Structures are given as structure tokens and as C-alpha cells.
């Protein structure tokens, strides 16, 4: 049908209604296509991409206030609390909800003992919508603040760690950061159990953090951390703390250290290191000093053990002898009385001058009693480096003990391929080798407990509200020597305390056994004049050892022999234990 055109005065032939119709159809198609495209795009955004977008959006719809989980307690084996929490709170302010800023600042400054200008500045100049005014605020201050009834002030429990005994078991317990994370010691090692799971208060807000009326508030409660029960015995630890403190004053030593463990299980009963510090007054401003004082040197540092290492050489000889190794010496064998041994042209000598019949005609027992170096050189040379290294390996030197603590040292041992005869000769009496105190204590325990190597450990159990989450059992790694060899060795070490260099640790009727050690210190590869490490490793009762103590006095002034400097403190602590536990004499 032709279009009726009334407006146009002239009708040209090139105007065609068909063109207009076609054009309109094209427009129909185009707009339909565009609408379909838009719907397709919306389908993609809403349906396919939607979940992802919503997840991102939820983030911005809610604000959260953390609810800090209560950190687990640390107790000794009898439940004496060694690390606990004070109920403290973080005070938050949500700026947008504050009505009277000046009044609030005044009240905050007063109750939290802060400077008004500081509070005002914090509240006005901080960009975020939740402002932390102060952490670890005590309950009474919070109560005082609550009385004002301010809008926009929030409290969230944050806990402060407290150590009831201040300077006590310091390097073992370690400390936490101000926001309650374990930073050193067992606080760090067992952090994942102690810390618990923080909760949150989530509330729906608008863009600037103003809570929406009728918005959902969800409370995700915090799960408190698990408690940690240690193998440490508070009372024995007290003895060790006192003994090391005394050793520091008496001998003006650089450091005094004591480790007590149960040789039948590896459970550590006490570990004291001086100098130390009060765990409740951590000097966070001097990080390097804090780091030095926090170092658990009995585990993390190595030293040249000296004569206490002869226990290993003696153990190797006895075991090999019992096994019929012809290169081993019989306990009754009388060694050459000379002060010197010449190894590959080098002279190795005894610490004693052997004058006036000293160290003459000694058997192995006599060698241990007098700590005579040449006898142990003879044993090592005779057994050879393969056998000696076999025992070094069996006694777990050169490897960490596996104690539940971070930063354990491996020790330093010459590789077997590099060791010369003269090195081996010195290793026999504890030189040219470096071990950690814990390695020595654990190895000695294995040598005298019947021959079983136990991994030392601190944690007795992990528990919560009467439910034991994990009970730690003693871990026997392997046998080091036979029961018989162990018994013979233990008898000999008992002799050392009864008749030999360990006399100062002797307690009538309690069968104390042990071995002294005195080592010269090296500085930059040369012997440092006048610097010694006096040590004693002892235990009782010799027939069924229950307590093993390692005492290390680093750089004592004046006297420096293990026998006179270190052994008396072992005795002091053993007597203390006997009193505490009311132990009857064994004989």
C-alpha cells in the first residue's frame, strides 16, 4: 500500500516506502539483538560470575571485632601453674557511633591513664573505622569506663600472659608477643596448641562502618587454647634455680646451667640457666639482650665437654669387651702409667703431671676416678675410629636429640673421613668435639640406665578441662649398650663419686654416681687463657637411676675444676630432692 504523503510538495521517484520499511525492520532486529546481548551479559555477571562477586562483596558488608581466645596454661607435672592469663581487654572505639567526642576522650584519658591529646589525636586522625585505643587494659579500668555508658566504645578480651614465678624456668617457658603469640621457648614450640582459635563478632554495616538497623550480628565464640603440662617439677626447678644463682655469685661465672632429667624416660625435670630475667618484665626495647638472655644454651649452644665425655669411651670399651672384641681392654687391665702418648709424632698428655705415683698402675675404674687422659687415648686408639664413631653415633652425638623445643644444636664432630689419629685420641677424652649440654645428659642417661637412649622431652601432656588431648610417652630411640655393660659402667661411675674426682657430690647412702669435666675454652681457634668450662654429670641411685643432673659452670673465676666447682651443686640439688621427696637411703 502506498504511503499517503500530504506534506511533501513534490514526489521524487527515488523515495520509496520499501526502503523505510526495510530500515525499520533493520532497527527492530538491531534493538532486539542489543537487548539480547544485554541480557546475555547480565546472565554472565549475575549467574556465572555471581558467586565470586558476592564473596568479594560480603567482605565489605561486615566489620569484625576479634574475640581473642584464652591462651592455654602451662603447668608443671603436679599442676603448679607456670604461665597463666590475666583477663585484660582491648578497648576499641567505632568513630561513627561516638556522640560526644570530647567527653569520651576525657574519660578514656582518665580511666586508661593516657594523655588526652594522644587519645583525641588517635580518634580524630586515624583513618580506619575501628580504632584500638589501648590493649591489655585491666578489668577494673574497663568497669570504670563502662559506668559512663558511652556509645561506640567496645571491649574485646585480649589476655595478658602472666608468669607467677617471675624469673623462673625463663629460657624454657619463653615469652609471647603483646598480642599473645608465642615468640620463644615452649610458648613458641607449643603455640599451635596453646593459642586456641580466635573468635569474632561480625556485624553488618554500611560503607563507613555504621551498624545497620536490623543487621545481623553474628558471634563466633573463641575456643580457648589447650593447656600444657610439663615434665618439669616445680620444686626441683626451684632447687636448680637456687643452685645456679648461687654458683653465679660464688664463682662469678659468666653463666651457670643445670639440667635435671629422669634417665629412665628422658623427661626433663628442671632446666635452669643464669643469667636470666623476669618473664613478666620483658625488655622489648633491647631486642639483642632479650634474645641473648632467652637463649636456651643447654640445647642451643655447644661446648667442648672435656672429661665427662670419657663416659662414652668407657662405655664403648666395656661393651666391646663383653662382646669379645680383642681390641677392647678388660676392666681389670692395667694401663701404662706414662703421662704421655705419642700419636703420629704428636705428644698427647694427661692433665695431671703423674708425679709422685699419681695415676700409676690404673685400670679403667682408676682411669675414671682420676680422669686420666692417656688411658682413654689407649682405648680409642685400640678400638679404632670406626668403632669409636659407631658409639658416637649410637649415643646420638652429631644429631639433635629430638627434644620438643626449637633451635636445638647438632654439635660439631669431625667427619669420619677427615679424622686423624691424633684427633681421635683427643675425642677420647672430650676434646676436638663439641656437644650440647642436652646431648651429653641424654647420652649419659642412656649409658647408665641399662643402655636405652630416650629422647628428652618437656611436655608431659596436652589437656583441656580434664580431657587429655595428648599424653606424651617416653620415646626410646634404640639401645646403645647392653644392660650388663651399663651396670658395670654405672658401678664405676659410682666409684668416681665415692673415691675419685666426684667426691664433692657424694651423699652417704644414696649411691650418687657421676663424672667431672674441665675443659679449656677456645676463642677464635686458640685456647683462651684462664677460661674454663667446669662441669659435672651425676645421678642417683647408681643401681636404678632416677635423677640425672648436668651442671655446667661457664668461666668460673678462681677455681675451675669440675670436681670442685660443679660437683657440689649437683650434691646440693640431689640433697634437696631427697628432702623434698623424702627418699629413703638405698643402702
Amino acid at each position, binding site marked *: *500500500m502506498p*504511503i*499517503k*504523503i*500530504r*506534506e*511533501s510538495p*513534490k*514526489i*521524487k521517484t*527515488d*523515495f*520509496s*516506502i520499501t*526502503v*523505510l*520499511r526495510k*530500515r*525499520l525492520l*533493520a*532497527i*527492530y532486529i538491531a*534493538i*532486539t539483538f*542489543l*537487548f539480547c546481548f*544485554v*541480557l546475555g*551479559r*547480565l*546472565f554472565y*555477571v*549475575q*549467574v556465572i*560470575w*555471581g*558467586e*565470586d*562477586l*558476592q564473596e*568479594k*562483596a560480603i567482605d*565489605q*558488608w561486615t566489620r569484625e571485632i576479634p574475640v581473642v581466645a584464652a591462651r592455654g596454661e602451662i603447668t608443671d607435672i603436679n599442676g603448679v601453674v607456670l604461665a597463666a592469663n590475666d583477663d585484660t581487654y582491648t578497648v576499641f572505639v567505632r568513630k561513627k557511633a561516638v556522640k560526644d567526642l570530647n567527653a569520651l576522650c576525657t574519660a578514656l584519658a582518665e580511666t586508661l591513664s593516657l594523655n588526652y591529646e594522644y587519645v583525641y589525636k588517635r580518634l580524630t586522625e586515624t583513618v580506619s573505622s575501628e580504632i584500638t585505643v589501648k590493649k591489655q587494659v585491666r578489668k577494673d579500668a574497663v568497669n570504670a569506663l563502662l559506668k559512663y555508658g558511652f556509645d561506640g566504645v567496645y571491649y574485646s578480651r585480649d589476655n595478658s600472659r602472666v608468669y607467677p614465678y617471675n624469673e623462673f624456668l625463663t629460657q624454657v617457658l619463653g615469652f609471647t608477643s603483646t598480642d599473645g603469640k608465642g615468640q620463644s621457648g615452649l610458648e613458641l614450640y607449643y603455640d599451635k596448641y596453646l593459642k586456641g582459635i580466635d573468635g569474632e563478632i561480625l556485624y*553488618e*554495616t*554500611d*560503607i*563507613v562502618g555504621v551498624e*545497620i538497623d536490623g543487621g545481623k550480628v553474628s558471634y563466633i565464640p573463641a575456643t580457648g587454647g589447650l593447656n600444657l603440662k610439663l615434665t618439669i617439677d616445680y620444686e626441683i626447678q626451684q632447687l636448680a634455680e637456687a643452685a645456679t644463682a648461687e654458683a653465679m655469685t660464688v664463682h662469678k661465672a659468666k653463666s651457670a646451667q643445670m639440667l635435671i632429667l629422669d634417665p629412665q624416660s628422658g623427661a626433663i625435670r628442671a632446666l635452669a640457666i643464669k643469667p636470666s630475667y623476669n618473664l613478666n618484665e620483658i625488655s622489648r626495647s633491647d631486642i639483642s639482650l632479650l634474645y641473648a638472655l632467652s637463649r636456651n644454651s643447654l640445647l642451643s649452644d655447644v661446648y667442648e665437654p672435656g672429661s665427662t665425655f670419657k663416659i662414652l669411651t668407657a662405655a664403648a670399651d666395656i661393651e666391646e669387651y663383653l662382646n669379645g672384641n680383642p681390641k677392647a681392654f678388660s676392666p681389670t687391665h692395667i694401663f701404662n702409667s706414662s703421662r704421655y702418648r705419642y700419636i703420629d709424632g704428636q705428644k698427647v698428655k694427661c692433665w695431671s703431671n703423674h708425679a709422685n705415683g699419681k695415676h700409676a698402675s690404673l685400670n679403667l675404674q682408676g682411669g675414671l676416678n682420676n680422669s686420666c687422659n692417656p688411658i682413654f687415648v689407649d682405648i680409642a686408639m685400640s678400638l679404632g675410629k670406626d668403632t669409636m664413631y659407631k658409639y658416637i653415633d649410637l649415643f646420638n652425638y652429631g644429631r639433635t636429640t629430638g627434644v620438643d623445643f626449637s633451635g636445638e644444636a647438632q654439635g660439631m664432630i669431625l667427619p669420619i673421613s677427615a679424622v686423624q689419629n691424633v684427633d681421635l685420641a683427643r675425642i677420647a677424652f672430650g676434646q676436638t668435639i663439641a656437644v650440647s649440654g642436652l646431648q651429653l645428659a641424654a647420652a649419659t642417661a642412656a649409658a647408665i640406665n641399662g643402655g636405652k637412649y630416650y629422647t628428652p622431652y618437656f611436655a608431659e601432656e596436652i589437656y583441656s578441662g580434664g580431657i587429655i588431648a595428648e599424653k606424651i610417652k617416653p620415646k626410646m630411640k634404640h639401645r646403645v649398650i647392653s644392660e650388663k655393660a651399663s651396670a658395670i659402667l654405672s658401678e664405676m661411675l659410682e666409684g668416681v663419686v665415692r673415691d675419685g674426682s666426684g667426691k664433692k657430690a657424694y651423699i652417704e647412702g644414696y649411691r650418687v654416681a657421676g663424672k667431672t669435666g674441665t675443659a679449656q675454652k677456645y676463642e677464635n681457634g686458640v685456647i683462651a687463657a684462664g677460661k674454663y668450662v667446669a662441669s659435672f654429670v651425676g645421678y642417683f641411685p647408681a643401681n636404678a637411676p632416677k635423677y640425672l643432673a648436668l651442671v655446667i659452670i661457664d668461666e668460673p673465676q678462681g677455681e675451675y675444676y669440675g670436681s670442685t666447682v660443679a660437683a657440689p651443686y649437683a650434691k646440693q640439688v640431689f640433697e634437696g630432692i631427697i628432702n623434698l621427696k623424702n627418699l629413703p637411703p638405698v643402702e
Partner: protein
Amino acid sequence: MKPFIRRQGGDYALLIAVVLLAVIGTVFIYSASNYSAAATYGDALYFVKKQVIGIALGVVAMICAALYDYKKLKKFTVVVAILSFVALALVFVPGIGVENYGAKRWIGLGAFTLQPSEIAKFSLILFSATYFSAYKERAANFSGVLPVLLFGGTVCLFVILEPNMSITVCIALLMMTVIFAAGLKIKAMLLIILPAAFAGVVLILIEPYRLSRLAAFLNPWESPKGEGYQLLQSLYALGSGGWFGVGLFNSRQKYAFLPFAESDFILSVIGEEIGFIGLVFFFALLAFIVFRGLRAARRAKDVFGFILATGIAMIFGIQVVVNALVVSGSIPPTGLPLPLVSSGNTSIIIFMAEAGVVFNISRKGTGTF
């Protein structure tokens, strides 16, 4: 064959659809704005009240236009053109022009503000219709459409100076649609489109903010708090809607997260609340209005009515599509209202009046095309 009398009666369905859309729009304006309006103006119904007044005036304008013989509109071509250019110029006069977000797009009229570009769009349609009805045979050649291009180009120039890129683009697209509908040869079309596209690129390059918006569009997560913010918030809203939406009035994005939630980005809130399924129905209503407008054009008994109805239907359709593409992150964000839905008085009054014009065309339509 439908009864003659009903055709004489005009396309009431179009009018109902338009009013329905405006009412739906008001509901969503309430949903999108009540929180921020209460916070900003102390009145949760601030935008709703303005919109209701706009709709009331719009309905009056629509009824008047529906009853007024559209052919007589030709007489007003020059007057409307002069008025719209004066209004466009007034935007730049200090004290009269109202500046918002760095652009002068409004002129103040007491309590109300007027957006001259809205009038200018209608003026362009009216001018084209009048011109092509007078010189329909010239429409095929480039020289014949020059007056329309000149008119449209001048409007574009004013609007781009405000600056308002998106309305400029819409006006340019409208102009192209109109001369295409009038029958310009395809070769001549290309002669116009290519330089226009080039001009568009230049316009983006000379305005640094457009360039940064373009970059933000390509990767909004690079500046989630800056240029990418608006787009991300819009996507978050749509994405949260999913298939079925979070429910009417349950938008979370309206809590000040999504700027312009009641105006240019109202589609985001609608999508969040009613979901994709809801949007399908919503777009069906929008498409219905476009198709009814094109139907009136098809049935118009003269070229004037044909161009007028096509232009009105298409400016509505173009704005819907461009707005939806912006909101869904398909093209860089620009400020453009969703016709009949977004908060904004000038826009709603003009669109409703235009719907009245289309109704009048449909009323007189004889089904010629």
C-alpha cells in the same frame, strides 16, 4: 482484522506500560535511596517524593501530548529548537548552570533543576521528523541529511562541553538511527560513522579522566577504591543478586556502597534485589515499550509520524541499552539515567510526554507501514 474503532483508540498498552515502569522505578528508588537519603537529607523519602512529583507532572504532560494532534507539533519545531539551544547555553552561565561532580549538566529553576540535554534530544527528533517529512526524497543522499547532521552535531557539541560523554554518544546514536530510518544510503552512512568514531576516540584521549576510567574499566580490581570503585560496586550488586535476587528492599549495596544507586546505577540495585530472572521480566517490559513505539512508527500514516515515533522509541531503547551495558561493566562507566526508572525529573517528564506523542501517532495510525 481488528475492529477499526480500537485502532482509533490508540495504544493504551504503551501508556500503561510506561506508567507501570515509572511506578516500579519509584519503588526501587525508594529501596535504593531510603538509607542514604535519611543519612544525607534526614528524609528517607527525599528522592521518592521528588520522583512522585516528576511522575505526576509527567502523567499530565503525557495526557496532554496524547490528546494533542501530533501533526501540529511541526509548528513548534523552531520554537523547541531555539528553547533547547538557549537551555543548553544557559548551563554555562554562572549562577544558572548547576555544577555537580565536575560537570555542568543542569540549570536551576527554583527548587527544580532542569537537564537541557533531555529537551535537546526531543528537539533533535522533532527537527528531523519535520525536515524529513518536508524533504523525504533528499534523505537518501549525504547532502540531503546535512541539516540534520548540523543540528545534531551542534547539540552534541553543547553536551560534550558540559561535559557529558554518554548523553553525547546517545544523541549521536539517535541521530544516526534517525537518518538511517529516513533512508540514507549505506555508503553515505559510513561516510558519517567513520569520522564520528574517530572523533569519539579523540574525545577519550583529550580528557584524562576518560582515559583513566577506560583503564579502570579494563581492570577495576587495580583501583578498587579509585576509578574502579563504581564499576566494582555495581558488579557486586548484580553478582549478589544471582538467579533470584536477595528480595525486594534487601539490597546490601545500597548502604552507601554503591554511589548513584537511585539514579544512574539503579539497575544494579534492581538486579541485586530481583536477580537475573526478575531482570528478564523487567527487560521484557522495557523492550515492550520500545517495540510499541516502533509499532506506532510502522503504522504511522506519514513520514513525520514515522520519524517521530522511531526517534522516540529508539532514544528510549538506546539509553536502556547503554545504561545496562555500563551497569554490567560491558562499557566504561558514564553517567546516564535509565529512562523512566532512574531518579530525575526532567528525564521522566520528557519521556512520559514523548510516550503521549507516540500514543497520539498510534491513535491516528492506519497501519500504512
